[in-house]
């Protein structure tokens, strides 16, 4: 279409939830591209439709709710909204992977963390149990977990929040996806841990050549991580552009208001 090199081309994406028979639109026909290896940020306040957009690319509706998607999501030329569920299942995890917001609830409490990476590798890479475990240990080391061979046999409750997010990142990158979607990956974490996770995501993106779609409400997080930014508000993309230009000269009044409200640590505060 417009740009044949694009990895992901989203055109006129709409999402509509059906709550108690009342339809409510949360995404109003947005379009954007992500090139291979590119890092793109989506920023906006809660309820602006940024997470729903991410779920649409994964074609994952929240359990028990019905959501109707419209428009097209072209991934390497295939329309993700129209392919068979089987093909989509092969896509998920292998081509497009996702990291979620809350590491405390995102790991299965009754399985060891190793087994939760193993099952992904067995499914997509067709590895045997033993080969999968070798790769799992490598992956845990890659995301910065000490003694990975030992820790692989631990259960999630034996890990801290930051370590769990590392495990979830290991799961997401285990099959070397082309696109990694990170939905508020550091919101639930402490600020020092947040810095570590951001560095990790950046390093992995570079080493594995993945495109990154980073979704966050925090302008500080988005600033150092991505090349381009989309600002979302009320289900629309109100502004987009190169990250430096957008921060230096926001055009849309909403973006300006948002940026102005961000508290800054260098601004002199009050004195006694």
């Amino acid at each position, binding site marked *: 279409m417009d740009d044949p090199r694009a990895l992901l081309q989203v055109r006129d994406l709409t999402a509509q939830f059906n709550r108690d028979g009342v339809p409510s639109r949360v995404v109003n026909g947005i379009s954007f591209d992500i090139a291979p290896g590119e890092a793109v940020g989506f920023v906006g306040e809660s309820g602006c439709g940024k997470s729903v957009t991410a779920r649409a690319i*994964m074609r*994952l509706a*929240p*359990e*028990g709710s019905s959501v109707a998607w419209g428009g097209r999501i072209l991934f390497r030329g295939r329309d993700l909204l129209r392919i068979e569920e089987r093909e989509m*299942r*092969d*896509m*998920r*995890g*292998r081509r497009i*992977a*996702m990291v*979620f917001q*809350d590491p405390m*609830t*995102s*790991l*299965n*409490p*009754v*399985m060891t963390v190793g087994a939760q990476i193993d*099952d*992904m590798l067995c*499914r*997509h890479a067709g590895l045997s149990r033993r080969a999968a475990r070798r790769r799992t240990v490598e992956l845990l080391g890659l995301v910065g977990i000490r003694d990975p061979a030992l820790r692989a046999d631990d*259960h999630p*409750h034996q890990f801290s929040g930051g370590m769990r997010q590392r495990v*979830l990142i290991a*799961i997401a990158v285990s099959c070397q996806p082309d696109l990694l979607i990170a939905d508020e990956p550091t919101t639930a974490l402490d600020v020092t841990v947040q810095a570590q996770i951001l560095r990790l995501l950046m390093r992995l993106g570079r080493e594995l050549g993945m495109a990154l779609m980073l979704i966050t409400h925090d302008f500080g997080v988005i600033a150092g991580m991505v090349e381009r930014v989309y600002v979302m508000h009320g289900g629309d993309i109100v502004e987009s552009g190169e990250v430096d230009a957008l921060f230096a000269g926001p055009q849309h009044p909403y973006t300006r208001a948002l940026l102005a409200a961000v508290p800054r640590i260098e601004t002199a505060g009050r004195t006694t």
Partner: protein
Amino acid sequence: MIRMVAVRLALTLPILLGVSIVAFVLMRALPGDFAQASAGTTAISAEALDTIRRNLGLDQPVWQQYLVWLDGALTGDLGRSFATRQPVTGELLPRLTVTAELTLIAGLMALTMGACTGLASARLRGTTDWAVRGLNSLLLAVPNFVVATLIVLLAGLYFPTVGIFNYVAFASDPLGNIASLLLPALSLALTVSVTISENTRAAVLEVSSQDYVMVARAKGLRAWTILGNYLVRNALTPVITVTGLQLAALLGGSILIETIFTIPGMGQYLFDSIANRDYPAIQAIVLVAATIVLLMNVVVDIAYARVDARVSYD
């Protein structure tokens, strides 16, 4: 593991003690005289009554009577039946095995039915969910003794010659024995299966909305893997607990069912004992049943910890 079992058992001990006190007090708080009752219905002289009192230790303070009784209970001596003058333990044991067998079969039936309908209801939603919940409401409203009565009635009307309603001893014909218990077990299991079904449904729904299931879907795992490793394994814990707790209901229910199907289990023994005012026997039945329930709760807790690594009692 051994440590955990020990801790759980230790926690159960005070409750067991409480249970034994209740069982003891229940029978000594009779409006009538225990000695009079033990003598049966025949007219009896005052001296003879005194002798009985002494023999039974009824002239001692109540707490001493309790200790003597508890000491006996701990060594397996639950007293002598008033009716047959035989040790209660010896009379109770064979009946206990019959009741245990009936309860076990009914429990397995209820678990199978409940887990399957609950899982189907939660996963398939829509019409299945609606149908299962409707059926559950109806089943829950039909008491087991009504089911049993209706089964016997229908059988009497339409299959008067088929003998599967007559209890067959296990020793004489093992298969026939199990077959003869199937219908009684079914009438017991129906109500209990509803509880298991509703709890399974709620647990699976609860687990389905958890983030880690979303992660599993995002991993592109096959539906069966998600069902087995993510949904069922996490929904198992509450279901195990409920199933264990339903054992009490099954034991209580079997008392009724046994009388309707004339199965020589604990229920029948209880009724014979009530009819005969055979208090030591009643006491023993109550004590044994409560002990079984308590031990089963310990088993449930241990099973819980086996399934869920987060639970530990260290």
